[in-house]
């Protein structure tokens, strides 16, 4: 007899872990972005989608609201906003 012992690969994608985000989420202002990719590099979830400059977005299905992207942005072009106000 076996208990729950094995997890198949892909569970971190299958589980929409953004459901337990803190009370804030990043907002991409898309005004002064220079496309440096620092925000997508530091994101622990890898859920920042970097396209061209001023066109960055975030997959909120996985974002935990840690705020690393906001404090790392050299142009202060990402801000944390309360969930209620988002």
């Amino acid at each position: 007899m076996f208990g729950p012992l094995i997890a198949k690969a892909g569970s971190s994608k299958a589980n929409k872990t953004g459901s337990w985000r803190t009370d804030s989420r990043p907002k991409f202002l898309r005004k002064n972005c220079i496309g440096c990719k620092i925000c997508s590099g530091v994101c622990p979830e890898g859920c920042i989608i970097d396209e061209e400059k001023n066109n960055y977005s975030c997959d909120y299905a996985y974002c935990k609201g840690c705020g690393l992207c906001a404090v790392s942005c050299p142009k202060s072009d990402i801000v944390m906003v309360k969930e209620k106000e988002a």
Partner: protein
Amino acid sequence: MKEFLEGSQAIAKMVKLCRPGVISAYPITPQTHIVEELAQFVSNGELDSQFINVESEHSAASVVLGASATGVRVFSATSSQGLFYMQEVIFNIAGLRLPVVLACANRAISAPINIWNDQQDSVPLRDAGWIQLYAEDVQETADLHLIAYRLAEDKNIMLPVMVCMDGFTLTHGIETVDIPSQELVDKYLPPYKAPYKLDTENPITIGPLVDADYYMETRYAIEQTMKDVLKAIPKATAEFAKVFGREYNGLIEGYRISDADKVIVAMGSVCGTIKDTVDELRKKGKKVGLLKITSYRPFPIQEIYEALKGVPRLAVLDRALSLGSYAPLASEVRAVFFGKKKKPSVISSFVAGLGGRDITKDSIKNIFSMLTNKERAGEFIDLKPELLQEKYE
């Protein structure tokens, strides 16, 4: 082929025949000869295996855990402090349901430091989720390794096995041992096919974090599987007898108990001494016998009950303690009969042979003579009271 071998050499030869893919261990007396011999086999090309040198027993256990999780047959060996240093990993190996086979050359525990034999190292790990088998002689020690792999790798069991042998007595004693051919061993033990394994082509996680919603079921599953092991052991030994011609019960072995008034219950090499003593006393007309316990985990409760329910007086011989309570084996044998109508009128408990003190035929005769109507709890045999006069003020 019959060979005159040191116990460790016999174990190493048997393990070699099991074709482990990864071996990792750290030297510790009295286990060292086993892995020394295996390292020699690997280095001279007789055994196609990776022998991974590590800096500690914790690492040795971790290496075989990881290797086993990739689906390879593994082996490790240790003793005493080494086993305790492995302890955290030992529980993990069972929890991860990995069929690791480990030889434990039973040795006393520090402090004070002592390299000689008792069973205080493996007995406390009875709760770890491992199958624990105790051997009586060198042949049985060697054979149990084969049986261990059969059991561990059974896809319905997938639990680790600790083969316990009394240090020096069985690791350094020299006996005539029948070492089977590779052909026969391959017949008994086919290559290991892991039902789950770490594989980059088909990635899985084994043993991820589980919270209160899942944890209890993982433990319940091991507890239930232990009941399956009780059925699997006699099957594995019956199959063993078919292939190799040597018969073991694998759970318990009764020796002259059918008409006995007094029976000693014991584990390990002391059973040989008890058998000889029983034979001597029987010649004098005393109705005495032995119940040897081979499988300490799972503990064959029903089999022990059936074997001993009609015996008037039982003596349980422990070579380990649970300081502050009844001796471990004694408390478990007592529990077998708790609430039963048919049971021995006396179950006395004796402790002997700690730290390598010899258990002689006289010690055994002493136990039989002390097995009276007065029930004894944790009676130390061959104790030297003159050594207990120390005063520190």
